[in-house]
């Protein structure tokens, strides 16, 4: 591969998905990853496939609900993408889409859920409100304090440990090249292309030229964009997840809580994964390929399980096997960055937001943007240009 069409920085879900879509369209692609594939948020998240509007966007729901509606078309595409992905990449991704419940324990939360439901109805996302008796029928494992929930029949989960590696293998079969242990050091425009400097693990520096540059480095996209002279507001968010021992199958849905920060699901293996954006302590160098070794907070683990036990009481008979932390990234308006990097030519970014659920779809849309000049779904609401901090000279 002398000069690939596209160089992708970041070997996580978005990077591997984009590589696969591009390679299938006949482009030559290289993915550059400083560690092993899928070791960032892509491999460490809780694997939720949630299509309902997220609880963390509650304040946005109150102030500017129409912004949330902008995510729904992507979610609808994502539902389809997850259904077809396993066969398309010829791998079992443990996709289970048997329904999701966004639960409420108070009247206020129920009211918020109803408002959310109205918005979702308008834009075609399937969700319905369930009261106690409705819940008792489909989710008898829920605690008595749950008084209502928004049910979305297609929500569920997939196994984040398997997805990006499967996409990587499929991308390789389609002709993409993936380079691990290669650390991006910088890039500049020269002769109508991007010239990248990367160092291998043995210390050698290599130069690579590519027509298009994609920044799909998760939280590290921030420092990378900074290095390109195109900073965008992306905040690293250190989150905590925990897993219990295996237990017999009892919880068939993806469970989320409207206000108490809980996500809970039971895997095919029987283990229960508990999350909900409880924080860990950020250890973040802010460097382009820096290490992140977040420290767990015992209070987060405990707080998370206090909620888990209230909502799904059977959890109290289990043991926590391990907790871990991953770094997600978020923007000031909670919507992803997806599109051309402002002020640069042939450079794109896809980061921030719930990129596990939307990961494959984002890859698809990015590939369409690069190959066709426009994606099949509008990504205008996610235009990184909405945050352009300063205008940068476009290099010739």
């Amino acid at each position, binding site marked *: 591969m002398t000069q690939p069409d596209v160089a992708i920085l970041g070997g996580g879900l978005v990077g591997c998905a984009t590589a696969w879509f591009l390679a299938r369209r006949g482009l030559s692609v290289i993915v550059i990853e400083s*560690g*092993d*594939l*899928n*070791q960032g948020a892509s*491999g460490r998240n809780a694997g939720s496939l949630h299509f309902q509007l997220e609880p963390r966007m509650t304040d946005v729901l109150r102030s500017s609900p129409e912004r949330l509606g902008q995510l729904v078309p992507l979610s609808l595409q994502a539902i389809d993408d997850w259904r077809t992905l396993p066969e398309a990449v010829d791998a079992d991704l443990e996709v289970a889409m048997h329904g999701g419940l966004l639960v409420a324990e108070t009247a206020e939360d129920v009211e918020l859920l109803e408002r959310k439901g109205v918005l979702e109805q308008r834009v075609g996302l399937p969700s319905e409100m369930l009261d106690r008796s409705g819940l008792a029928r489909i989710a008898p494992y829920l605690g008595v304090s749950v008084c209502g929930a928004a049910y979305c029949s297609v929500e569920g989960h997939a196994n984040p*440990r*398997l997805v990006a*590696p499967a996409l*990587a*293998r499929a991308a390789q079969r389609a002709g993409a090249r*993936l380079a*691990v*242990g290669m650390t991006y050091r910088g890039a500049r425009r020269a002769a109508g292309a991007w010239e990248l400097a990367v160092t291998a693990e043995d210390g050698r520096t290599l130069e690579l030229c590519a027509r298009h540059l994609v920044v799909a480095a998760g939280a590290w996209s921030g420092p990378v964009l900074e290095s390109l002279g195109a900073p965008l507001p992306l905040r690293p968010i*250190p989150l905590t997840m925990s*897993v*219990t*021992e295996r237990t017999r199958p009892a919880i068939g849905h993806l469970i989320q809580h409207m206000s*108490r*920060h809980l996500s809970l699901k039971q895997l095919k*293996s029987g283990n229960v994964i508990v999350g909900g954006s*409880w*924080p860990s*302590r*950020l250890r973040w160098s802010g460097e382009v390929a820096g290490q992140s*070794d977040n*420290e*767990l*907070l*015992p*209070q*987060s*683990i*405990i*707080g998370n*399980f*206090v909620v*888990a*036990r209230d909502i799904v009481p059977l*959890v*109290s*008979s*289990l*043991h*926590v*096997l*391990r*907790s*871990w932390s991953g770094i997600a990234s978020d923007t000031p308006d909670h919507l992803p960055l997806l599109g051309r990097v402002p002020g640069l030519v042939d450079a794109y970014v896809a980061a921030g937001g719930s990129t596990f659920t939307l990961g494959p779809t984002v890859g698809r849309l990015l590939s369409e943007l690069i190959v066709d000049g426009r994606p099949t779904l509008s990504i205008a609401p996610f235009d990184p240009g909405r945050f352009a901090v300063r205008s940068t000279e476009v290099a010739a």
Partner: protein
Amino acid sequence: MSDLDVADTNVCDVVIIGAGPAGLAAATRLAEAGLRVVVLDEQQRVGGQIMRQPPSEFRIREWMDDAVYRPLKSLISRAEADSRVDWKMGCTVWGVFRSTLPQGGFDVRYVQGKRSETLYSPRVLVAAGCTEMPAPFPGWQLPGVMGAGALQSFYKSQQLVVGRRIVLAGSHPLLLVVAQQLARAGANVTGVFFAQPWRRVLNGLRQPRALLSGAPLLWQATGLLLDLRRRGIPLHFSSCVTAALGGDRLEQVEWAPVVNGRPQQDPRHTLACDALGVCYGFLPATELARLAGASATPAEGGGWRVCSDADGRTDVPGLHVAGEQTGIKGAAAALVEGRLAALALLSDIGLIRPDDPHLPRTRKALAQQRRFAQLLTQLSTMSDEFFGALLTDDTLVCRCEDIERRQLSTTLTENQLLRAASATKLLTRAGMGLCQGRYCESTIRRLLRSQGSAQPGGFRPRAPVRPVPVEALCRSPDASAIRWDELHSCNDPEHR
């Protein structure tokens, strides 16, 4: 971040994790200086593993009567009688965390009974010892196969001889001690197998104080070998057990000669038995110190040893280590290291002067112990190639998740870009079971190295370091006061 509402009862000057020789030596020295010391250990009584005491309800004539155990026995009885130390036994520490309080220090979380509790301390000494080095071979998961240390502790502590026909195999001189102890107790030991040539074993025995690393002194060793010979216990050198065979349980072992450091395919012999004690060495149990942020480097034969200065200070201020944490060295050296760590703590606090003569004296004593310990480790650690050859395709690598080497090989073949142990764990589930990777991490690292991955790294140390009941967590004293938004503020710039 709002301050933890810290009651007086859970604040102290030093928390020591581990009541083995290192922990006990440190605790008694620190208590002597008037510090408030809390010692936490999972076991019911102090002593650690080498000196694992019987239940207090037992009365035993002549327990561990050998002269060489006297200093340790004396330390144990002094410690147990020392009411200045708060001995929290039967307590399982599940994490050591840097405190979110402005003054720093550590938040030590442990389970006692049915509750998770918390202890705050400005200083923590981790002396959590070691575990058996896992050496997978076909059938090693069968009931009846256990670590030689386990056979020994069943006998020594529970006064139980496990099995009717016992075989011991591995490379650590501990095997000889266990063979004699069990034979004396009336057990039928039908074979002891050393993978090394006999000369290498003998060199290991020429070192003084070897018994307290589990191995006997030379003069005792000679007596030991003669005694075993007299009892008709066959000793095999340059031989190893290559398989444990049986239906539901161990019925016989298969063994083979070891030539040029590798078990031979041919000839293979069998020996009937119902108990097999395996010991190829030990790995430091350093999850807690590493979880709290201390740096570590690979230990001989597997596992991680915590990096520390000469006196046991890690690169996390206030976090100290002693004993096997910094490398397997045995009980005698651990005792000295514990004492040294206590002196270092006292010096840091200002209760003794940095030029106190006890410091250099103790350092010197430790250096001697360490030299011997290193030699013993070298003489009893088999090579990567040896362990690689013991492992067949259908050997279980991850006992907890039932993952065979074959499955790992397939995943590595299908995912050529896999290099790291943590990535391998993520993709295969190996290491995700209840033992939290203690019995498979070293094997996976070896596999990756044999596939050309120079630095596969390890599994990230994770809290909880032991499975914790959810119910116990929910009963934690601070459970009802935890607020999600307050926790998030710990990452605000002014708090970092």
